[in-house]
Every structure is written in structure tokens, then in C-alpha cells.
């Protein structure tokens, strides 16, 4: 006596994103820690030295967070107005920040009061950065100038007045103490050399420039502005290398993943995209709740910190290896320990007669009903809203099984208005899905046969039937278009590849034919 074999649920290949090494890598982060700041988070900067604290510039404050703390380790609050661009020096000891009140302040990370105040700009300073020799500061301001300051004397060394609009971003070279690059709302990027008193290179981004990034090798420069991210080859005199248009709103921030293999860009469209820097293809995508203003990655990608317009700072930490393993298994609720132990530790006595208990086979509800040949009930179970919406493959598998048993007609028949509309809803949702179409077309034909007589009695059902008809007509048009395209492709292939077989096109064409035939057949019933 064999046991009942349950209905086989077909496993379909997942449509949409493929599982690649990148998705696995970038998904391997814990749930984000979110901290509410006082205003929009405009800048995040990681300290170059361990333990890699990071400075978050938001509204009139700069908070410094430890790598795992959720409370600020330190805060700088001595700003009269909105602070901008708090950046660490390369030794992690000093921090410079611009301000809406045009004063640039320099802080000791361990102190509280500003060590130096650089006054000279006339408008808000959005860009500050240390040069690589650690003794100078580069600032860029809304007064269209960028200036170079000496830290020990707090004096201005030089002023460059070449931009014709706000300067909102800039970087200094890590290899050369005299080179720095600024980007401005006048659509240009300018490379300045402190040894000469004017820019040495100008590149046109085409959009107001929001963010700049230098590769560690400093041969390539990445700029973001408008919806574009552009890569420039500095060694070839600022020749544009690639232009990426993957966001649908202004790109606001850029970051490199620490090994330089991946480039991340954050945008007002609330996405962070990860690019492969060899072919500049998007390999991963993060979604956030609000428009992103700032983005930073800890060394070795240990955490991703994102600041948003609504003042929320989101930190994601990488999972440790053991945690990663833990979550790979399904976090399913299991019966308690007691259930498994129950009776297991009982040692039978010498003259006890052992009765072997048959292992009970667990069956899903619809399988139990199928086992009892309750076909209508099984279909009802499979059409329950959770299954129908979340796991349509189960419903389709049950329909297929009923069809195989030759009892699909019985199961479909004898339904009231509610049941029928539920069924039609499911059909409308899944009929044109190529994975389910072969099974559901048969079912749809049967439904139309059975319920032909009741058409016109219920407005709900009638409306749904009309929708089904529309859906089919649309699908037929779509298939026809596809066939036309395939025909064109065939001609192209035939002319370009003489004598060779073109297996792929031939097969997909016949697939298309079949689907169209099916849908035609159903349309004829209407």
C-alpha cells in the first residue's frame, strides 16, 4: 500500500533579478540602524584612522559617531548657522567645516571649541578639504571663489575666482599637495594647481555639478550632476570616458567601495546604485525611504551610511560570517523543543512490547482534500486569497492536477457569484503569464463553457468577463507585435549569418506561435 503522493508544485525560475556575487555581497548587511538628526544630512565623512569614526554634518551640528554606536561620541555645536562639509584630516586629528555664515572652522577632534576660524568668504561655504600635506585647507563658497588657507597662521594663501556659479563640491589630491578639483553649478569642473594662479584643466559636465570623486590612482575623476554620473580621464587631459544615466533624479553623492572595484551613487530618487568600475554596469541597487543627500562607506565596506533629506541617518553594518550563515537557513517558526523530546527519552523496560508507530505523512490542505477526491473543496483551498495572491504557482498546480485527474470541470462548476468572481479574478491576474498560460487557458475555456448561461445575470461577473476579454485582445496585439519583431530579427540573422543554423530565434518563434494560438482560441470563445 503506497502512500499518497502529494501534488507537485512546479518550481519556476525566478524572473527579475538574478542572484550574482554582487547581490549576495551587497545583501549581506544587517537591518539598518536609523538615527533622526535635526535637519537634512548633507555630508558624511569617515575618519581615515581606526576606529573609523564618522562625522555627520546635519543642520547646525556635526556629530561624530563611533563605528557601532548609535549615540554620537562627540558633537560640535558651535555653529551660528547651518554647517556644511565636515571633513577629517588624513591623520584623523583635525576636522574642518564650512558654514552658512561664510566662516570656515577648524576643530580638534578631541576638543570642543574651534581651533581656527578662517574668515574671508562672503557667502556660505559648502566645500572644505585638507590638502595632502595636511597644512592647508581648500574651501569653495557660494561667492564663486575657492580659496587656499594656511592652517598654522589661519591666513588666506590664494583665491581663485574662475567659476561663475556656486561651488558645491571639491576634492583634493591625495598624492599631490598642490592639486585640487572643484565642481560648480556653472556645469564645469576645474582642476587647480596651487603653484600657478589659475586652473589647469576645465571639463564641462553639462549639468550643475553636485559631487566629485577621485579614484585612488587619481587617473580618473567621477563627477555627478543632474541625472548623470560622468567619468573623466585626467591623464588624457580631461577626456570624458563614460556617461552614466541610471538615476531618474539628480545624483547628489558618490562613493567608492574601498577596493575601488565598485562605485556607488546616491540620488534624490531615493536609490543608491552600485556600478562595476570595469564595465560601468549597475550590479546592485539599494532603496531608501527618502531622497539621499550624502553617502559614505566605511573602509572594507564594513558599513554603509546614508543621509537623507528628512534628517534620517541610516547605517547598515556588514554581517559577521556566523551571522551570515545563520540567516541563510529559513527563519521559520519551529515547534518547541518539548515536542521533539516528548517520549523520546523513555527507555522501554525489558518485557515491554514495542509497537512501531507509522510516520505520519504531512499533507497540505488541498492535498488532503484531493486524497479524498473532494475536488471542489481542493480548488477552493487553492483559491484562498493568501495562496492566490502570494503563491499563484500552488493554485496553478492544483488546477493542473485536477485537469490531469479529469475532474477540473466538476471542480469549476457549481460556483456562486462570489466564487466565480474569485476565480475570474485569478484568471485576470495570471492568464497571460507565460508560465501559467497553458494550464489556465484550458481552465478558462471550461469556465466559459460552464457559465455561458449565466452571463448577463450578475454585473460583477459581466464586468470581469469584459476585463478578461480586453486582456486577451491586448495580449493578442502584443503577441502580433512580438512576432513581427521576430520576423525582422530572422531576416537580419539570415542575411548576416549565411548557412549557419539559427536555433534560438526559431524556437522562440514557435513558442510565440503557440501562445498566440492559445490566446486566439480563447478569444474565439468570446
Amino acid at each position, binding site marked *: 500500500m503506497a502512500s*499518497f503522493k502529494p501534488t*507537485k508544485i*512546479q518550481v519556476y525560475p525566478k524572473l527579475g533579478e538574478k542572484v550574482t556575487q554582487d547581490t549576495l555581497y551587497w545583501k549581506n548587511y544587517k537591518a539598518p540602524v536609523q538615527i533622526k538628526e535635526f535637519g537634512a544630512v548633507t555630508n558624511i565623512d569617515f575618519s581615515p584612522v581606526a576606529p573609523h569614526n564618522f562625522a555627520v554634518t546635519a543642520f547646525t551640528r556635526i556629530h561624530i559617531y563611533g563605528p557601532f554606536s548609535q549615540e554620537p561620541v562627540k558633537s560640535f555645536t558651535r555653529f551660528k548657522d547651518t554647517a556644511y562639509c565636515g571633513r577629517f584630516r588624513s591623520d584623523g586629528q583635525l576636522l574642518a567645516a564650512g558654514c552658512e555664515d561664510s566662516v570656515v572652522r577648524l576643530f580638534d577632534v578631541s576638543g570642543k571649541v574651534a581651533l581656527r576660524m578662517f574668515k574671508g568668504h562672503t557667502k556660505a561655504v559648502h566645500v572644505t578639504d585638507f590638502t595632502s600635506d595636511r597644512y592647508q585647507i581648500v574651501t569653495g563658497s557660494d561667492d564663486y571663489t575657492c580659496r587656499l588657507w594656511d592652517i598654522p597662521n589661519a591666513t588666506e594663501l590664494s583665491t581663485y575666482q574662475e567659476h561663475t556659479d556656486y561651488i558645491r563640491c571639491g576634492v583634493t589630491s591625495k598624492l599631490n599637495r598642490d592639486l585640487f578639483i572643484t565642481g560648480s553649478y556653472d556645469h564645469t569642473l576645474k582642476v587647480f594647481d596651487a603653484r600657478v594662479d589659475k586652473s589647469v584643466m576645465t571639463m564641462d559636465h553639462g549639468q550643475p555639478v553636485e559631487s566629485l570623486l577621485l579614484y585612488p590612482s587619481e587617473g580618473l575623476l567621477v563627477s555627478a550632476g543632474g541625472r548623470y554620473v560622468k567619468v573623466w580621464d585626467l591623464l588624457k587631459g580631461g577626456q570624458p570616458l563614460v556617461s552614466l544615466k541610471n538615476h531618474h533624479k539628480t545624483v547628489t553623492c558618490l562613493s567608492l567601495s574601498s577596493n575601488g572595484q565598485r562605485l556607488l551613487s546616491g540620488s534624490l530618487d531615493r536609490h543608491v546604485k552600485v556600478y562595476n568600475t570595469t564595465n560601468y554596469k549597475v550590479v546592485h541597487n539599494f532603496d531608501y525611504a527618502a531622497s539621499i543627500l550624502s553617502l559614505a562607506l566605511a573602509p572594507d565596506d564594513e558599513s554603509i551610511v546614508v543621509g537623507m533629506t528628512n534628517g534620517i541617518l541610516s547605517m547598515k553594518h556588514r554581517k559577521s560570517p556566523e551571522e551570515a550563515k545563520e540567516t541563510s537557513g529559513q527563519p521559520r517558526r519551529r515547534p518547541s523543543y518539548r515536542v521533539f523530546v516528548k517520549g523520546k527519552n523513555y527507555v522501554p523496560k525489558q518485557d515491554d512490547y514495542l509497537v512501531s508507530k507509522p510516520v505520519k505523512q504531512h499533507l497540505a490542505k488541498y492535498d488532503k482534500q484531493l486524497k479524498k477526491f473532494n475536488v471542489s473543496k481542493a480548488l477552493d483551498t487553492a483559491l484562498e486569497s493568501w495562496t492566490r495572491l502570494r503563491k499563484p504557482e500552488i493554485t496553478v498546480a492544483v488546477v493542473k492536477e485536477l485537469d490531469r485527474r479529469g475532474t477540473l470541470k466538476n471542480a469549476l462548476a457549481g460556483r456562486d457569484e462570489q466564487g466565480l468572481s474569485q476565480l475570474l479574478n485569478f484568471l485576470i491576474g495570471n492568464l497571460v503569464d507565460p508560465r501559467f498560460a497553458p494550464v489556465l487557458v484550458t481552465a478558462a475555456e471550461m469556465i466559459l463553457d460552464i457559465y455561458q448561461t449565466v452571463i448577463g445575470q450578475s454585473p460583477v461577473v459581466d464586468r470581469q468577463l469584459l476585463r478578461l476579454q480586453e486582456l486577451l485582445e491586448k495580449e493578442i496585439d502584443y503577441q502580433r507585435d512580438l512576432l513581427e519583431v521576430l520576423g525582422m530579427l530572422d531576416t537580419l540573422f539570415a542575411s548576416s549569418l549565411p548557412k549557419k*543554423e539559427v*536555433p534560438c530565434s526559431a524556437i522562440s518563434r514557435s513558442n510565440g506561435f503557440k501562445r498566440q494560438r492559445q490566446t486566439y482560441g480563447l478569444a474565439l470563445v468570446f
Partner: protein
Amino acid sequence: MVEHGDIRVVHRGGSKINFREPVITNDSSFLLCASGECVKVFSTSTEECIHDLRGHTDLVTGVLLKPSNHLQVYSCSADGTVRLWDFTDGILIKVQLDSCIVFAFTVPHPTLSVMHLLTKGKDEKLFQLVAVHLPQSGDQLVEARELSAVLSDVSSNPAAITIGRGGEYFASAKGLQLEVYFFRKQKSYRFSLKEGNKKGGRNTFTCVACHPKDDCIATGHEDGKIRLWRNFNHKKEYTYTTLHWHHSAVSSLRFTPEGTNLLSGGVESVLVQWRYNQESQRDFLPRLGAAITHITISPDGALFCTSHSDNKITIIQSCVKVSAVIQGLVKGESVRTDLMVDPRSKAMVLNGKPGHLQFYSLQRDKLLYNLDIVQQEYIHESGLQQFEVVKAAFDASGNWLATVEERKQKAAELELNLKLWEFDEQTQSFVLNTTISAPHEAQITAMCFCHAADSQTTMLVSTSKDGHFKAWQLATPARPSWSCDFVGAYHGLVPKCCCFSADGSLLAVSFQEVVTVWSPSSWELLTTLSQPPGAIRDLCFGRLSCSKYLLGTTASNLLCCWNLLTCSCKTNCILEHLHGHQPAAVFVFKPSEPRPLFSHKAVCSGKVTRAVFAPREDMLESCEESSQWLNCSQLYFLTQYMDLMTFITKAEEDRLMASSKQLVIDDSVAMTPFYLLLGKHRQQQQENQDTLSTLSAERTPLPQGSVAIKELLQTPAHVLPSTSFLCSMFVQSLLISESKHAEEEMESEKEEEDSEGEMESSTSRPREASLAGHATETAALALTKAQARELRRVKKLDHSWLSGLLDS
């Protein structure tokens, strides 16, 4: 072409065991069933076939226990004879000749000493029920002349005739009529039913059963109804009640010996137990595997036994537990997968139960297991389209198995699944690795694995009616799975078959008349070969020394052999006579020679549909040129009627015969307390009687092989007899007699007399016939003396408890 005298065609397994209902012996330990030309005796506890009762020359059509002696059994056959066997030792006792074809027995009459047979005249259409008086003569061959027809024009189905309570009447159903014939009154009543009712139920009778204690006849009908007839000794006032559970025809009905329950079975493969007089109470035993064809109940009512359409007998203990399954070679309607040999187990593989592949051991003539390919609940309903396994292929090492299953619905398109199974060393069975749904647009016509043993990649090629052939390759990213590697076509023609060369460097695919040869490494079309008249039906590469040849058969009875080095057609052998009247012939060729090596005409009735070379376990050392091709492998073939046959040489046959005679029937009686009480007593007595003979009889050359040791070691301690009793036996088994052959002979003769004497005392019937038969049999067997003695001793052991019972 020469016919070879010393190579013979033999039936090899696979004969039906579900043709007629089996018989369970009175002690419920054996089950006898008709199987082809012999009667097989199975043990009900171990499922093993203990021995065959051979002697009939045609299909055995019925088995019946002799009512007066429950150790004997009648069998009837289509050759017109009825034979009486002593089934415990399988010796033929009586042969009775008839002048017509015997179709079946009916239930024996309890009081009259006549046997009722369902017969058909040699040239008549109608079946009739005849009574035969068994002459009580001692001759081995008896001619029965006095045949008296009891009922004429009865159904050909033996299930539709039965004898009623106490042998008072016969009930026979045919078509829409039930006929009850009373012996006393010599009068028959007929009851007719209407052809069908409004709902389209068909009232045709299918089977009949009579209540053993009550005047009640149960009849099964084509629409699944069971009717219980009462008051049928009046023409007018008969009544019937209807029971309905089955949805299609009831194929078998039986009352239990006490009459408390009624068992019924049909296509649903559910055994239904109805309480007599409380018919609303039913018990079910579902999912027995295949449609039930017969139900048998042991005389004490403890065991039920159902025969199934898939050549299976299930033994059920008191309607709740399946205790044993005796499975023969499963026979479907056709073998759509070819015959194959599993490279690992050397078992023959072919279609089995619906949706399964069966692995059949040729050496042991036993079904090893069924591999579930479809993995879906089988719905037992006629007329339903089910998934069928249509193609299967093994790779060279037996690591991979590819199967194709298909289901063709009435209107909709074909459902196809290609499944690839990997052999799992731990569980020693095939585990599903990849399922490819809809691998092709149309039916798959052929499939083969690349046979190169040392190649890095495993490759499978499938050809389909959609005009493409596809190559599937094992890809190993993380977990090995199969994916399509190449799709090929040739001028839109439909490929029919494909074959890899032995080293895997060439792939031949036939497209109607054209054979294309491809290189699997680059998928280049290397060459095309063609033989215009007739499409290619089969393709095969030569092996070993003949690997340069490609062989093909065409629809116009042509066997072509291409030499691939010269790309020329080397030999054409036109098998014209295949066209003619000769129904079945087997030819064996060597690829390099145009003349057949061996041919055998008229090997069987019907066509030879499939054939396979199965490797032998041990090589045969035949020096004769004519039979050298049978040295390394054996050719098995399957006929149209699904009989598995093979060729066997004379020498091999003799060897097999000798080995089968050596098999000792080890069916020793269970060590029950009852046996201990009586059997011990008896044995001690006997020991006192003839100490000398038993002493030496107990002796065997090796103490390990002795039965005494075996009993001592294998019997559970709590049922062992006293140590004092065992001690003498044990010591005896260790003794070595000084006397050799001369003395042995005398002793064995003496012992034979002893045993005979004992049997006579135990059963009071005259046993001359049996004696004669016994003597001739022993002479014919030409056993060695030691073996003969062993046999006799075992026999004595069996009967001792019985004789002890009778003595006391």
C-alpha cells in the same frame, strides 16, 4: 542460413502470475498460482518462489486444491490435461487427458466426487461447464471419457460461475442474465436485468459469488454496483439489494469462509470489505498499486490475497496490513522505452507500473524495484490520460539516467518532461537531479548518452518530431544540473534516431533517409550518408574492433553498414523474408560480415518487438563457432505478447538444470510448542527404532552445513528443546563415518524404505502412484548420493510432526 540445433529458445521469466486466481494452502504457508506453462509455489511469508511445477505443455488455466487431500493440487491447462501434484515436493502424480481445451476450474463441489471444468471444444465458439468423474485408478495416465455437460453457453470468465451453499446449486452469469441451476431439481432459473438505466449505468454481470452459509448470491456489475440476490429459488419472488461504491466495473467478489464479510475489488485498486447484513459498514484498503483482478481468501480466512493487473499478487493480513507482495515482470500494454541493461546492477530496465521504470534481475528472475519516474498520484480510472514513461537512457557508467515522460491530452498539446536522475551511492538508488519541462515542441523520438568513459563532460542528445535535436550538458556551477548546449536541425527534416560512437567523438542522427554525422566537440556537420529507399528506423555504432562501422535499419527491410573511414556503404543485407509469412525471426550479425552469424526462424508466436544483449556474470566457455556469440552476453527479446525469451545453448541448459536440482527446499516447519511436544516425542521414538541408519543419515561432511547446527543457532532460545535432546544431535553432526560410497548406497536405500514406510503410516491413502513417480524421478535426477539423502532427510523432518500427530 543455418538453423542451429543446439541453441534453443527458452522462456525467461516474465510470465503472467495474475492470469488466474491463486490458491492459498490450508496452512496458509504457500500460495500456488498458474504462471505460463507451469504452476509456481510461493511462500506467503518470504515472497520467494519455492519451486515450479512443470509438466504442462500449454498455458495453465487453473489451479485447485484437492478437496480430499490438502497437500495435493489439481491444475488444468489449455493442452487439455488435468494434472494432480503433490505441491510440497513438487512431484507429478497423475495426468488426465481430455479431448477439449480446458479453460478453468470452478469451486469444487463439497460432496460429489466430480470436478467441474469450464471447457471449450476444439472448434466450438461457446464455453460450457462440464462435470468429470475422476477415476480412482493407479495409472499415471488416465483418459477421462465420461464428460457430462452441466451448463452450456456460459461466460468465458471463470469468475462468473460459482457453486452455492453446500453444493446445492450453480450460479452462472453471462451478459445480462443470471442463471441458477439446482442439482436436486435439475432445474435452472434465469433472471435478466435491463441493459441500462436512465443514468447510463450498464448492468452487465462481471462476477458472481455465493454466500457459504446463506442462500445469497452476490453479483458484480459493469457500472460498479454489487447486487445481493435472495429468494432465487422462485421464478417470480426473487429480490435483490444493491450496494454501490465502485465507480467502474467490479472485477472480483468473494465471501469470507464464515460468510461475515464480502470483499470486492475493481479498477480503483481499492479492496472493499462489506459487512454481510450491515452493508453500510465498509472497510477500505486503498492504493494497492493496480487494478484488482482476483481476490482469494485462505481457507481459515486469515489471509486475503489480491491479484493485480500489473502482474502482482498482494497478500493481506485480515484486511488491514499488506504483509507480502509477489511481483512478476510488470507488463504494460507496450514497452515504449526500449529494453535496456543497467550498467550497475546488470538488471534489465523497461516500463513498469504506470509512471515507473522497473529493474528486473535477469539472473534471479526477480523484480528488483520500481523507480517512480512521474511522481504523481496515479488515478485508477479507465480512459484517463496519464503520464507515461516513453524513453529512458543510461550513461556508460550507470551514474546518470535520463527519462522522458509524456501525456497527451485530448485536445490540448503534449506535456513533456525530461528528467535526469543521478545515482546516489548512499541510498543506492537514482535521485532526481534536473527536470526539464517541455524540452521539445513535439514528441521525443530518441535519446542517447555519450558513451565515452573518459570524457570530461557528460552529454545527452535527444531528437524530436519538431525537427530539432538538442544536446544537453551537465553544468557544474555549485550544484550539478543540466542545460541545453546545442540545438541542431537538418533541412527541416524530422530526426528519428541518434547514436554516439563508442569513443564519443561522433554523433549520428538520422533524418528520414539521411544519416548525418556530427562532431560533438564543435557541432560541425561532418558528413551525410544516405540509403534512399526507406527511412532509417534504427542506428547503431559498432564497438571495439568494429567501431568504424555504423549500422542502420531502414523501413524497406534493409540492414545497412557504413564504413566511416571511407564513408561508403559497405554491406547491404536485404532481409526480404521478413516481409513474408514467417511471423518472427531473430538474426544475429557481425558488423563486418554481410551474412548473419545466427538466425532462428519462428522463435515465438507474434512479432519480436525488442531485444537487448545483456552481459553475462560469468563468461561462457563455448568453443563451438556457432554459439561463440553467446559467450559474453545473452540476447533477451520481448515478444508482442510481452513474453521475455532468450537463447540458450545445450551445455548451458544442462548446467542450469543440474544446479536447479541441487536447490534444497528449505521449508522446515516452524518450531511451535505444539511441534516440540509431539515432534520431539516422535523423533526420539524413531531414533530408538533405527539408531544406526539415522546416525549416519544425520551426518554431513561439514558440521557448519548440518541442519542440527543450523537449528541450534537459528532457533530462538525460548523455543529450543531441552539441551539433552540437542546434545545428541550436535554430537552426531560432528561424527565422521569411516565407511565410504559402498556402504552409503546401502544405507540410503534402507533409509528410503524407511521414509516411505513412514509416509504410508502417516497418510492412509494408497500411494503406489506416488511411489512409482518418486522412484522414476530419483533415477532421472541423477543426484549424488549425499544430496539425495539430504533431500530425503529434510522431507522426513517435515512430515514427522504430522505423523506424530496422527499416531498419538
